[in-house]
Protein backbone atom coordinates (compact mmCIF):
# COMPACT_ATOMS: atom_id res chain seq x y z
CA UNK A 1 0.00 0.00 0.00
CA UNK A 2 2.72 2.40 0.99
CA UNK A 3 4.59 1.68 -2.21
CA UNK A 4 1.53 2.78 -4.13
CA UNK A 5 1.34 6.05 -2.28
CA UNK A 6 3.56 8.12 -4.59
CA UNK A 7 1.52 6.91 -7.56
CA UNK A 8 -1.75 7.66 -5.86
CA UNK A 9 -0.36 11.00 -4.93
CA UNK A 10 0.29 11.90 -8.53
CA UNK A 11 -3.03 10.59 -9.73
CA UNK A 12 -4.91 12.31 -6.99
CA UNK A 13 -3.09 15.61 -7.32
CA UNK A 14 -6.15 17.46 -8.50
CA UNK A 15 -8.11 16.18 -5.57
CA UNK A 16 -5.33 17.02 -3.18
CA UNK A 17 -5.20 20.62 -4.36
CA UNK A 18 -8.93 20.87 -3.83
CA UNK A 19 -8.80 19.44 -0.32
CA UNK A 20 -5.38 20.15 1.15
CA UNK A 21 -6.45 19.64 4.77
CA UNK A 22 -7.19 15.95 4.26
CA UNK A 23 -3.95 15.15 2.47
CA UNK A 24 -1.12 13.58 4.39
CA UNK A 25 1.79 12.16 2.42
CA UNK A 26 4.14 10.51 4.91
CA UNK A 27 7.04 9.99 2.55
CA UNK A 28 7.12 13.65 1.54
CA UNK A 29 7.88 14.63 5.13
CA UNK A 30 11.28 14.89 6.78
CA UNK A 31 12.94 11.54 7.15
CA UNK A 32 13.10 9.91 10.55
CA UNK A 33 16.46 8.16 10.68
CA UNK A 34 16.10 4.76 12.33
CA UNK A 35 18.21 1.70 13.00
CA UNK A 36 17.00 -1.79 13.91
CA UNK A 37 19.03 -4.24 15.97
CA UNK A 38 18.41 -6.65 13.09
CA UNK A 39 16.35 -6.82 9.93
CA UNK A 40 16.04 -10.57 9.55
CA UNK A 41 14.39 -13.06 11.91
CA UNK A 42 15.05 -16.72 11.21
CA UNK A 43 12.55 -19.38 12.27
CA UNK A 44 14.53 -22.41 13.40
CA UNK A 45 13.57 -25.45 15.48
CA UNK A 46 13.58 -23.58 18.78
CA UNK A 47 11.93 -20.38 17.50
CA UNK A 48 9.61 -18.82 20.05
CA UNK A 49 9.13 -15.39 18.66
CA UNK A 50 11.77 -12.68 18.70
CA UNK A 51 12.40 -9.14 19.83
CA UNK A 52 13.89 -6.32 17.80
CA UNK A 53 15.15 -3.04 19.22
CA UNK A 54 14.78 0.15 17.27
CA UNK A 55 16.58 3.46 17.63
CA UNK A 56 15.61 6.66 15.88
CA UNK A 57 16.33 10.35 15.58
CA UNK A 58 13.37 12.68 15.71
CA UNK A 59 13.87 15.25 12.90
CA UNK A 60 11.71 17.81 14.69
CA UNK A 61 12.84 17.78 18.32
CA UNK A 62 9.95 17.73 20.74
CA UNK A 63 7.39 16.35 18.30
CA UNK A 64 5.27 13.35 19.27
CA UNK A 65 6.43 9.97 18.01
CA UNK A 66 4.06 7.18 16.97
CA UNK A 67 5.44 3.82 15.87
CA UNK A 68 3.40 1.26 13.99
CA UNK A 69 4.16 -2.37 13.15
CA UNK A 70 2.19 -3.99 10.32
CA UNK A 71 2.63 -6.85 7.92
CA UNK A 72 3.11 -6.13 4.25
CA UNK A 73 0.30 -8.52 3.35
CA UNK A 74 -3.24 -8.02 4.51
CA UNK A 75 -5.27 -11.02 5.41
CA UNK A 76 -8.72 -12.36 4.65
CA UNK A 77 -10.23 -14.29 7.53
CA UNK A 78 -13.47 -16.09 8.10
CA UNK A 79 -15.07 -15.74 11.51
CA UNK A 80 -17.77 -17.96 13.00
CA UNK A 81 -20.33 -16.49 15.36
CA UNK A 82 -21.95 -18.85 17.84
CA UNK A 83 -25.56 -18.59 18.91
CA UNK A 84 -28.06 -20.54 20.93
CA UNK A 85 -30.14 -23.19 19.19
CA UNK A 86 -32.40 -24.89 21.73
CA UNK A 87 -30.11 -25.99 24.57
CA UNK A 88 -26.99 -26.00 22.37
CA UNK A 89 -24.43 -23.42 21.29
CA UNK A 90 -23.49 -23.74 17.66
CA UNK A 91 -22.25 -21.64 14.75
CA UNK A 92 -25.21 -19.65 13.47
CA UNK A 93 -23.47 -17.27 11.11
CA UNK A 94 -20.15 -16.64 9.46
CA UNK A 95 -18.50 -13.46 8.23
CA UNK A 96 -15.72 -13.07 5.72
CA UNK A 97 -13.53 -10.20 6.83
CA UNK A 98 -11.06 -8.52 4.48
CA UNK A 99 -8.74 -5.57 4.85
CA UNK A 100 -7.78 -6.34 8.45
CA UNK A 101 -4.04 -6.33 9.08
CA UNK A 102 -2.41 -9.63 10.02
CA UNK A 103 -0.37 -7.92 12.71
CA UNK A 104 -0.96 -4.46 14.15
CA UNK A 105 0.98 -2.87 16.99
CA UNK A 106 1.35 0.76 17.96
CA UNK A 107 3.72 2.40 20.44
CA UNK A 108 3.30 5.99 21.58
CA UNK A 109 4.46 7.92 24.60
CA UNK A 110 1.02 9.39 25.23
CA UNK A 111 -2.56 8.59 24.24
CA UNK A 112 -3.02 8.67 20.49
CA UNK A 113 -6.12 10.89 20.69
CA UNK A 114 -4.01 13.61 22.35
CA UNK A 115 -1.51 13.51 19.47
CA UNK A 116 -3.68 13.49 16.36
CA UNK A 117 -7.27 14.14 15.35
CA UNK A 118 -9.59 11.22 14.50
CA UNK A 119 -9.47 12.34 10.84
CA UNK A 120 -5.67 12.12 10.67
CA UNK A 121 -5.77 8.81 12.53
CA UNK A 122 -8.23 7.52 9.96
CA UNK A 123 -6.15 8.72 7.04
CA UNK A 124 -2.90 7.24 8.32
CA UNK A 125 -4.65 4.13 9.65
CA UNK A 126 -3.48 4.68 13.19
CA UNK A 127 -5.54 3.12 15.99
CA UNK A 128 -8.20 0.43 16.23
CA UNK A 129 -11.02 2.76 15.16
CA UNK A 130 -9.26 3.32 11.83
CA UNK A 131 -8.83 -0.43 11.36
CA UNK A 132 -12.48 -1.02 12.09
CA UNK A 133 -13.51 1.53 9.46
CA UNK A 134 -11.13 0.10 6.91
CA UNK A 135 -12.00 -3.58 7.20
CA UNK A 136 -14.90 -4.98 5.21
CA UNK A 137 -17.31 -7.58 6.50
CA UNK A 138 -19.29 -9.82 4.25
CA UNK A 139 -21.96 -12.15 5.63
CA UNK A 140 -21.21 -15.66 4.35
CA UNK A 141 -23.97 -17.54 6.14
CA UNK A 142 -26.85 -16.85 8.52
CA UNK A 143 -28.82 -13.71 9.21
CA UNK A 144 -27.16 -10.36 9.81
CA UNK A 145 -27.96 -8.33 12.93
CA UNK A 146 -27.21 -4.65 13.62
CA UNK A 147 -24.82 -5.42 16.48
CA UNK A 148 -22.75 -7.84 14.38
CA UNK A 149 -20.19 -5.28 13.22
CA UNK A 150 -19.20 -4.52 16.81
CA UNK A 151 -19.40 -8.15 17.92
CA UNK A 152 -17.22 -9.45 15.09
CA UNK A 153 -14.66 -6.64 15.40
CA UNK A 154 -14.36 -7.15 19.17
CA UNK A 155 -14.07 -10.90 18.63
CA UNK A 156 -11.30 -10.43 16.08
CA UNK A 157 -9.46 -7.98 18.37
CA UNK A 158 -9.61 -10.46 21.23
CA UNK A 159 -8.27 -13.32 19.10
CA UNK A 160 -5.46 -11.11 17.79
CA UNK A 161 -4.58 -9.64 21.18
CA UNK A 162 -4.45 -13.10 22.75
CA UNK A 163 -2.00 -14.14 20.03
CA UNK A 164 0.00 -10.94 20.75
CA UNK A 165 -0.55 -9.91 17.14
CA UNK A 166 -2.41 -6.72 17.98
CA UNK A 167 -1.69 -4.25 20.73
CA UNK A 168 -1.50 -0.56 21.38
CA UNK A 169 0.85 0.65 24.09
CA UNK A 170 0.62 4.33 25.04
CA UNK A 171 3.35 4.49 27.63
CA UNK A 172 6.53 6.63 27.83
CA UNK A 173 8.32 3.68 29.43
CA UNK A 174 7.81 1.61 26.30
CA UNK A 175 8.79 4.38 23.91
CA UNK A 176 11.71 6.10 25.59
CA UNK A 177 12.78 9.52 24.42
CA UNK A 178 15.95 11.36 25.33
CA UNK A 179 15.90 15.18 25.17
CA UNK A 180 13.00 15.00 22.72
CA UNK A 181 15.37 13.94 19.97
CA UNK A 182 16.54 10.36 20.33
CA UNK A 183 14.01 7.61 20.85
CA UNK A 184 14.25 3.88 21.37
CA UNK A 185 11.74 1.06 21.69
CA UNK A 186 11.35 -2.60 20.84
CA UNK A 187 8.75 -4.81 19.20
CA UNK A 188 8.10 -8.36 20.22
CA UNK A 189 7.33 -10.59 17.24
CA UNK A 190 5.15 -13.42 18.58
CA UNK A 191 5.66 -17.01 17.37
CA UNK A 192 2.41 -16.67 15.41
CA UNK A 193 4.10 -14.05 13.21
CA UNK A 194 4.91 -16.26 10.25
CA UNK A 195 7.10 -15.82 7.22
CA UNK A 196 6.81 -12.56 5.39
CA UNK A 197 7.82 -8.92 5.31
CA UNK A 198 6.88 -6.61 8.15
CA UNK A 199 6.93 -2.83 8.26
CA UNK A 200 7.93 -0.69 11.20
CA UNK A 201 6.97 2.91 10.56
CA UNK A 202 7.83 5.94 12.66
CA UNK A 203 5.55 8.99 12.48
CA UNK A 204 6.36 12.36 14.08
CA UNK A 205 3.61 14.87 14.76
CA UNK A 206 3.69 18.49 15.86
CA UNK A 207 0.34 19.92 16.92
CA UNK A 208 -1.42 17.12 15.14
CA UNK A 209 0.43 17.65 11.86
CA UNK A 210 2.72 15.01 10.38
CA UNK A 211 6.24 16.41 10.22
CA UNK A 212 8.45 13.33 9.92
CA UNK A 213 8.29 9.78 8.69
CA UNK A 214 10.65 6.78 8.57
CA UNK A 215 10.37 3.12 7.70
CA UNK A 216 12.17 -0.15 8.44
CA UNK A 217 11.48 -3.48 6.78
CA UNK A 218 11.84 -6.65 8.83
CA UNK A 219 11.81 -10.01 7.16
CA UNK A 220 10.88 -13.28 8.85
CA UNK A 221 11.75 -16.54 7.17
CA UNK A 222 12.05 -20.19 8.01
CA UNK A 223 15.47 -21.81 7.79
CA UNK A 224 16.90 -25.32 7.90
CA UNK A 225 14.58 -28.20 8.74
CA UNK A 226 11.63 -25.87 9.33
CA UNK A 227 12.02 -24.36 5.89
CA UNK A 228 12.52 -27.73 4.23
CA UNK A 229 9.43 -29.27 5.86
CA UNK A 230 7.22 -26.30 5.02
CA UNK A 231 8.42 -26.04 1.42
CA UNK A 232 8.18 -29.78 0.81
CA UNK A 233 4.74 -30.18 2.38
CA UNK A 234 3.31 -27.28 0.37
CA UNK A 235 5.10 -27.75 -2.95
CA UNK A 236 5.62 -31.52 -3.16
CA UNK A 237 2.64 -32.87 -1.19
CA UNK A 238 2.76 -36.34 -2.77
CA UNK A 239 6.41 -36.82 -1.88
CA UNK A 240 5.80 -35.38 1.60
CA UNK A 241 2.77 -37.65 2.23
CA UNK A 242 4.67 -40.76 1.21
CA UNK A 243 7.66 -39.61 3.27
CA UNK A 244 5.43 -39.08 6.34
CA UNK A 245 3.99 -42.60 6.04
CA UNK A 246 7.38 -44.23 5.40
CA UNK A 247 9.01 -42.38 8.31
CA UNK A 248 6.11 -43.36 10.59
CA UNK A 249 6.29 -47.02 9.51
CA UNK A 250 10.06 -47.10 9.98
CA UNK A 251 9.80 -45.43 13.40
CA UNK A 252 7.06 -47.84 14.46
CA UNK A 253 9.01 -50.92 13.36
CA UNK A 254 12.18 -49.61 14.99
CA UNK A 255 10.29 -49.18 18.24
CA UNK A 256 8.95 -52.73 17.88
CA UNK A 257 12.48 -54.08 17.45
CA UNK A 258 13.84 -52.06 20.38
CA UNK A 259 11.17 -53.19 22.80
CA UNK A 260 10.91 -56.66 21.27
CA UNK A 261 7.26 -57.01 22.17
CA UNK A 262 5.94 -54.33 19.90
CA UNK A 263 4.88 -50.92 21.09
CA UNK A 264 1.37 -50.66 22.32
CA UNK A 265 0.00 -54.12 22.56
Amino acid sequence: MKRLLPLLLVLGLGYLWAAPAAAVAPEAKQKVLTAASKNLIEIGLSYRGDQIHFFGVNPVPGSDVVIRLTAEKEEDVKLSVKGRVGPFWMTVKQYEVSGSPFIYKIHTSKPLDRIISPETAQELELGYAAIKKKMKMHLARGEAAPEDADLVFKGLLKIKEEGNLYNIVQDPKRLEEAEGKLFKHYFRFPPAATEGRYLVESFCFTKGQLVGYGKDVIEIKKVGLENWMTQTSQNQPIFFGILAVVVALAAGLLVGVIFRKGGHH
Partner: protein
Amino acid sequence: MDIYLPIAGMSINFFLILGIGGLVGFLSGLFGVGGGFLLTPLMMMIGIPPAVAAASDSNQIVAAASSGAFAHWRLGNVDFKMGLIILAGGIFGGTIGVQFVKVLRAAGNFEFVMKVVYVLMLGLVGGAMFMESLRTILRSRNQGATAEVAVASEPKLGKLFAKLPLKMHFARSGLNTSAIFPFSIGTIVGVMAALLGVGGGFIMVPAMIYIIGMPTIAAIGTDLFQIVLTSANVTLQQAFVNKTVDLLLALILLFGSTIGAQFGAIAGKRLKGEQIRILLAIIVLVLTVKLFLDLVLTPSDLVSLAPAKGGGH
Protein backbone atom coordinates in the same frame (compact mmCIF):
# COMPACT_ATOMS: atom_id res chain seq x y z
CA MET B 1 12.13 -25.89 26.01
CA ASP B 2 10.03 -24.64 23.12
CA ILE B 3 9.86 -26.12 19.68
CA TYR B 4 8.46 -24.56 16.52
CA LEU B 5 6.04 -26.78 14.60
CA PRO B 6 6.46 -25.91 10.92
CA ILE B 7 3.02 -26.87 9.59
CA ALA B 8 0.99 -25.91 12.66
CA GLY B 9 2.93 -22.62 12.49
CA MET B 10 3.30 -22.25 16.23
CA SER B 11 5.79 -22.48 19.02
CA ILE B 12 4.92 -24.86 21.82
CA ASN B 13 6.57 -26.50 24.80
CA PHE B 14 8.32 -29.69 23.69
CA PHE B 15 7.61 -31.49 26.96
CA LEU B 16 3.91 -30.64 26.85
CA ILE B 17 3.54 -32.54 23.56
CA LEU B 18 5.82 -35.31 24.78
CA GLY B 19 3.72 -35.55 27.97
CA ILE B 20 0.42 -35.73 26.11
CA GLY B 21 1.91 -38.39 23.83
CA GLY B 22 3.12 -40.22 26.94
CA LEU B 23 -0.27 -40.02 28.66
CA VAL B 24 -2.14 -41.31 25.61
CA GLY B 25 0.53 -44.00 25.11
CA PHE B 26 0.18 -45.04 28.75
CA LEU B 27 -3.59 -45.38 28.41
CA SER B 28 -3.28 -47.29 25.15
CA GLY B 29 -0.70 -49.61 26.68
CA LEU B 30 -2.98 -50.12 29.67
CA PHE B 31 -6.25 -50.59 27.83
CA GLY B 32 -5.10 -51.92 24.47
CA VAL B 33 -6.89 -49.19 22.54
CA GLY B 34 -5.35 -46.76 20.06
CA GLY B 35 -6.10 -43.60 21.98
CA GLY B 36 -6.82 -41.54 18.86
CA PHE B 37 -10.13 -40.49 20.38
CA LEU B 38 -8.19 -38.82 23.24
CA LEU B 39 -5.30 -37.43 21.24
CA THR B 40 -7.17 -35.23 18.76
CA PRO B 41 -9.26 -33.40 21.40
CA LEU B 42 -6.17 -32.94 23.61
CA MET B 43 -4.16 -31.48 20.73
CA MET B 44 -6.99 -29.05 19.99
CA MET B 45 -7.15 -28.09 23.67
CA ILE B 46 -3.50 -26.92 23.65
CA GLY B 47 -4.13 -24.80 20.56
CA ILE B 48 -3.04 -26.94 17.61
CA PRO B 49 -5.34 -26.12 14.66
CA PRO B 50 -7.95 -28.94 14.40
CA ALA B 51 -7.04 -29.84 10.82
CA VAL B 52 -3.34 -30.17 11.71
CA ALA B 53 -4.19 -32.06 14.93
CA ALA B 54 -6.30 -34.67 13.14
CA ALA B 55 -3.89 -35.14 10.21
CA SER B 56 -0.76 -35.41 12.36
CA ASP B 57 -2.65 -37.72 14.69
CA SER B 58 -3.30 -40.09 11.78
CA ASN B 59 0.38 -39.98 10.94
CA GLN B 60 1.28 -40.84 14.53
CA ILE B 61 -1.22 -43.73 14.55
CA VAL B 62 0.54 -45.26 11.52
CA ALA B 63 3.73 -45.48 13.57
CA ALA B 64 2.11 -46.53 16.84
CA ALA B 65 -0.02 -49.26 15.26
CA SER B 66 2.71 -50.58 12.96
CA SER B 67 4.98 -51.70 15.80
CA GLY B 68 2.07 -53.59 17.38
CA ALA B 69 0.89 -54.98 14.06
CA PHE B 70 4.37 -56.20 13.23
CA ALA B 71 4.68 -58.01 16.57
CA HIS B 72 1.26 -59.63 16.17
CA TRP B 73 2.06 -60.64 12.60
CA ARG B 74 5.20 -62.44 13.78
CA LEU B 75 3.16 -64.23 16.44
CA GLY B 76 0.63 -65.27 13.79
CA ASN B 77 -2.21 -63.24 15.28
CA VAL B 78 -3.30 -61.45 12.11
CA ASP B 79 -6.26 -62.84 10.16
CA PHE B 80 -5.34 -61.27 6.81
CA LYS B 81 -8.51 -62.38 5.02
CA MET B 82 -10.72 -60.86 7.69
CA GLY B 83 -8.46 -57.79 7.86
CA LEU B 84 -8.72 -57.15 4.12
CA ILE B 85 -12.52 -57.42 4.14
CA ILE B 86 -12.74 -54.97 7.05
CA LEU B 87 -10.22 -52.73 5.30
CA ALA B 88 -12.33 -52.69 2.12
CA GLY B 89 -15.25 -51.56 4.27
CA GLY B 90 -13.02 -49.02 6.00
CA ILE B 91 -11.88 -47.41 2.76
CA PHE B 92 -15.46 -47.35 1.46
CA GLY B 93 -16.69 -45.79 4.72
CA GLY B 94 -13.76 -43.38 4.86
CA THR B 95 -14.57 -42.06 1.39
CA ILE B 96 -18.20 -41.48 2.34
CA GLY B 97 -17.07 -39.91 5.60
CA VAL B 98 -14.71 -37.43 3.92
CA GLN B 99 -17.53 -36.24 1.65
CA PHE B 100 -19.79 -35.92 4.68
CA VAL B 101 -17.14 -33.84 6.46
CA LYS B 102 -16.84 -31.59 3.41
CA VAL B 103 -20.58 -30.86 3.48
CA LEU B 104 -20.55 -30.19 7.22
CA ARG B 105 -17.55 -27.87 6.99
CA ALA B 106 -19.21 -25.87 4.25
CA ALA B 107 -22.17 -25.42 6.58
CA GLY B 108 -19.77 -24.29 9.34
CA ASN B 109 -20.90 -26.77 11.94
CA PHE B 110 -18.39 -29.59 11.61
CA GLU B 111 -17.17 -29.10 15.16
CA PHE B 112 -20.71 -29.14 16.54
CA VAL B 113 -21.68 -32.36 14.76
CA MET B 114 -18.34 -33.91 15.71
CA LYS B 115 -18.99 -33.19 19.38
CA VAL B 116 -22.58 -34.46 19.26
CA VAL B 117 -21.43 -37.73 17.67
CA TYR B 118 -18.62 -37.99 20.22
CA VAL B 119 -21.05 -37.47 23.11
CA LEU B 120 -23.54 -40.04 21.81
CA MET B 121 -20.94 -42.63 20.95
CA LEU B 122 -18.68 -42.24 23.97
CA GLY B 123 -21.68 -42.05 26.29
CA LEU B 124 -23.06 -45.28 24.87
CA VAL B 125 -19.74 -47.17 24.84
CA GLY B 126 -18.63 -45.79 28.22
CA GLY B 127 -22.00 -46.47 29.85
CA ALA B 128 -22.23 -50.02 28.52
CA MET B 129 -18.64 -50.80 29.48
CA PHE B 130 -19.14 -49.34 32.96
CA MET B 131 -22.28 -51.41 33.61
CA GLU B 132 -20.74 -54.59 32.22
CA SER B 133 -17.54 -54.37 34.26
CA LEU B 134 -19.43 -53.35 37.39
CA ARG B 135 -21.64 -56.41 36.99
CA THR B 136 -18.58 -58.63 36.49
CA ILE B 137 -16.88 -57.24 39.59
CA LEU B 138 -20.03 -57.71 41.71
CA ARG B 139 -20.59 -61.22 40.37
CA SER B 140 -17.01 -62.32 40.97
CA ARG B 141 -17.28 -61.01 44.52
CA ASN B 142 -20.38 -63.10 45.11
CA GLN B 143 -19.52 -66.31 43.34
CA GLY B 144 -15.90 -66.25 42.29
CA ALA B 145 -15.60 -68.87 39.58
CA THR B 146 -18.73 -68.38 37.44
CA ALA B 147 -17.60 -65.03 36.04
CA GLU B 148 -15.45 -66.50 33.26
CA VAL B 149 -18.22 -68.74 31.91
CA ALA B 150 -20.39 -65.84 30.76
CA VAL B 151 -17.63 -64.43 28.50
CA ALA B 152 -16.86 -67.80 26.96
CA SER B 153 -20.41 -68.43 25.72
CA GLU B 154 -21.03 -68.14 21.95
CA PRO B 155 -22.25 -64.71 20.87
CA LYS B 156 -25.89 -64.92 19.73
CA LEU B 157 -25.62 -62.01 17.29
CA GLY B 158 -22.59 -63.68 15.71
CA LYS B 159 -24.65 -66.81 15.00
CA LEU B 160 -27.32 -64.67 13.37
CA PHE B 161 -24.84 -62.79 11.15
CA ALA B 162 -23.10 -66.04 10.22
CA LYS B 163 -26.33 -67.15 8.49
CA LEU B 164 -26.17 -64.26 6.00
CA PRO B 165 -25.00 -65.01 2.43
CA LEU B 166 -21.40 -64.58 1.14
CA LYS B 167 -20.05 -67.19 3.52
CA MET B 168 -16.31 -67.47 3.80
CA HIS B 169 -13.85 -69.53 5.74
CA PHE B 170 -11.46 -67.62 7.99
CA ALA B 171 -8.68 -70.07 8.86
CA ARG B 172 -6.83 -67.96 11.42
CA SER B 173 -9.98 -67.14 13.41
CA GLY B 174 -11.38 -70.65 12.95
CA LEU B 175 -14.65 -69.23 11.65
CA ASN B 176 -17.15 -69.90 8.91
CA THR B 177 -19.09 -66.69 8.62
CA SER B 178 -20.60 -64.20 6.20
CA ALA B 179 -18.39 -61.40 4.84
CA ILE B 180 -21.28 -58.92 5.04
CA PHE B 181 -20.94 -58.07 8.72
CA PRO B 182 -17.13 -57.51 8.76
CA PHE B 183 -17.50 -55.27 5.70
CA SER B 184 -20.34 -53.29 7.36
CA ILE B 185 -18.50 -52.76 10.64
CA GLY B 186 -15.46 -51.65 8.59
CA THR B 187 -17.66 -49.14 6.78
CA ILE B 188 -19.12 -47.73 10.01
CA VAL B 189 -15.67 -47.36 11.58
CA GLY B 190 -14.36 -45.82 8.34
CA VAL B 191 -17.05 -43.13 8.46
CA MET B 192 -16.17 -42.43 12.10
CA ALA B 193 -12.45 -42.29 11.34
CA ALA B 194 -13.10 -39.53 8.84
CA LEU B 195 -15.55 -37.69 11.07
CA LEU B 196 -13.75 -37.93 14.41
CA GLY B 197 -10.11 -38.62 13.61
CA VAL B 198 -10.06 -41.88 15.50
CA GLY B 199 -8.69 -45.33 14.72
CA GLY B 200 -11.88 -46.97 15.95
CA GLY B 201 -10.21 -49.85 17.80
CA PHE B 202 -12.49 -49.34 20.79
CA ILE B 203 -15.49 -50.23 18.64
CA MET B 204 -13.82 -52.61 16.22
CA VAL B 205 -12.25 -54.96 18.77
CA PRO B 206 -15.43 -55.56 20.83
CA ALA B 207 -17.41 -56.03 17.59
CA MET B 208 -14.91 -58.60 16.34
CA ILE B 209 -14.90 -60.50 19.65
CA TYR B 210 -18.53 -60.31 20.72
CA ILE B 211 -20.35 -60.16 17.37
CA ILE B 212 -18.15 -61.86 14.77
CA GLY B 213 -16.86 -64.29 17.40
CA MET B 214 -13.12 -64.02 16.73
CA PRO B 215 -10.57 -65.05 19.38
CA THR B 216 -9.50 -61.95 21.38
CA ILE B 217 -5.84 -62.08 20.35
CA ALA B 218 -6.69 -62.48 16.64
CA ALA B 219 -9.16 -59.58 16.93
CA ILE B 220 -6.45 -57.27 18.34
CA GLY B 221 -3.83 -58.36 15.79
CA THR B 222 -6.22 -58.00 12.86
CA ASP B 223 -7.49 -54.65 14.08
CA LEU B 224 -3.94 -53.27 14.29
CA PHE B 225 -3.19 -54.56 10.80
CA GLN B 226 -6.16 -52.73 9.28
CA ILE B 227 -5.49 -49.57 11.35
CA VAL B 228 -1.97 -49.25 9.88
CA LEU B 229 -3.34 -49.30 6.33
CA THR B 230 -6.40 -47.14 7.06
CA SER B 231 -4.44 -44.39 8.80
CA ALA B 232 -1.67 -44.54 6.18
CA ASN B 233 -4.40 -43.88 3.60
CA VAL B 234 -5.81 -40.98 5.65
CA THR B 235 -2.32 -39.50 6.18
CA LEU B 236 -1.64 -39.58 2.43
CA GLN B 237 -5.00 -37.98 1.64
CA GLN B 238 -4.46 -35.25 4.23
CA ALA B 239 -0.96 -34.54 2.89
CA PHE B 240 -2.16 -34.39 -0.73
CA VAL B 241 -5.40 -32.49 -0.28
CA ASN B 242 -5.09 -30.37 2.85
CA LYS B 243 -1.30 -30.22 3.39
CA THR B 244 -1.87 -30.36 7.13
CA VAL B 245 0.40 -33.23 8.20
CA ASP B 246 2.97 -31.93 10.70
CA LEU B 247 5.61 -34.64 10.63
CA LEU B 248 7.57 -33.04 13.47
CA LEU B 249 4.49 -33.01 15.72
CA ALA B 250 3.73 -36.64 14.80
CA LEU B 251 7.27 -37.74 15.62
CA ILE B 252 7.28 -36.08 19.06
CA LEU B 253 3.90 -37.64 19.84
CA LEU B 254 5.20 -41.01 18.72
CA PHE B 255 8.28 -40.70 20.91
CA GLY B 256 6.12 -39.86 23.96
CA SER B 257 3.51 -42.50 23.29
CA THR B 258 6.12 -45.23 22.80
CA ILE B 259 7.58 -44.61 26.24
CA GLY B 260 4.13 -44.20 27.80
CA ALA B 261 2.90 -47.44 26.26
CA GLN B 262 5.68 -49.44 27.90
CA PHE B 263 4.66 -48.17 31.34
CA GLY B 264 1.00 -48.70 30.48
CA ALA B 265 1.64 -52.32 29.56
CA ILE B 266 3.45 -52.90 32.87
CA ALA B 267 0.62 -51.27 34.83
CA GLY B 268 -1.87 -53.37 32.84
CA LYS B 269 -0.34 -56.60 34.07
CA ARG B 270 -0.97 -55.63 37.67
CA LEU B 271 -4.68 -54.93 37.18
CA LYS B 272 -7.55 -57.35 36.51
CA GLY B 273 -9.42 -57.16 33.20
CA GLU B 274 -12.63 -55.81 34.71
CA GLN B 275 -10.71 -53.23 36.76
CA ILE B 276 -9.05 -51.97 33.58
CA ARG B 277 -12.41 -51.84 31.81
CA ILE B 278 -14.13 -49.89 34.58
CA LEU B 279 -11.21 -47.41 34.63
CA LEU B 280 -11.46 -46.92 30.87
CA ALA B 281 -15.23 -46.54 31.19
CA ILE B 282 -14.77 -43.76 33.77
CA ILE B 283 -12.27 -41.90 31.55
CA VAL B 284 -14.63 -42.19 28.59
CA LEU B 285 -17.58 -40.94 30.66
CA VAL B 286 -15.61 -37.96 32.02
CA LEU B 287 -14.67 -36.98 28.45
CA THR B 288 -18.33 -37.36 27.44
CA VAL B 289 -19.47 -34.99 30.18
CA LYS B 290 -16.76 -32.46 29.23
CA LEU B 291 -17.83 -32.49 25.58
CA PHE B 292 -21.50 -32.27 26.52
CA LEU B 293 -20.81 -29.20 28.68
CA ASP B 294 -18.99 -27.61 25.72
CA LEU B 295 -22.22 -27.91 23.77
CA VAL B 296 -24.58 -26.42 26.34
CA LEU B 297 -22.56 -23.93 28.43
CA THR B 298 -22.24 -20.35 27.20
CA PRO B 299 -18.91 -20.17 25.36
CA SER B 300 -16.41 -17.56 26.58
CA ASP B 301 -15.83 -16.37 23.03
CA LEU B 302 -18.81 -16.12 20.73
CA VAL B 303 -16.61 -15.22 17.78
CA SER B 304 -13.95 -17.64 16.59
CA LEU B 305 -11.68 -18.03 13.58
CA ALA B 306 -13.17 -20.42 11.05
CA PRO B 307 -10.59 -22.86 9.66
CA ALA B 308 -9.05 -21.41 6.52
CA LYS B 309 -7.91 -24.77 5.23
CA GLY B 310 -9.82 -27.96 4.69
CA GLY B 311 -9.13 -31.14 6.58
CA GLY B 312 -10.01 -32.12 10.10
CA HIS B 313 -10.58 -35.58 8.57
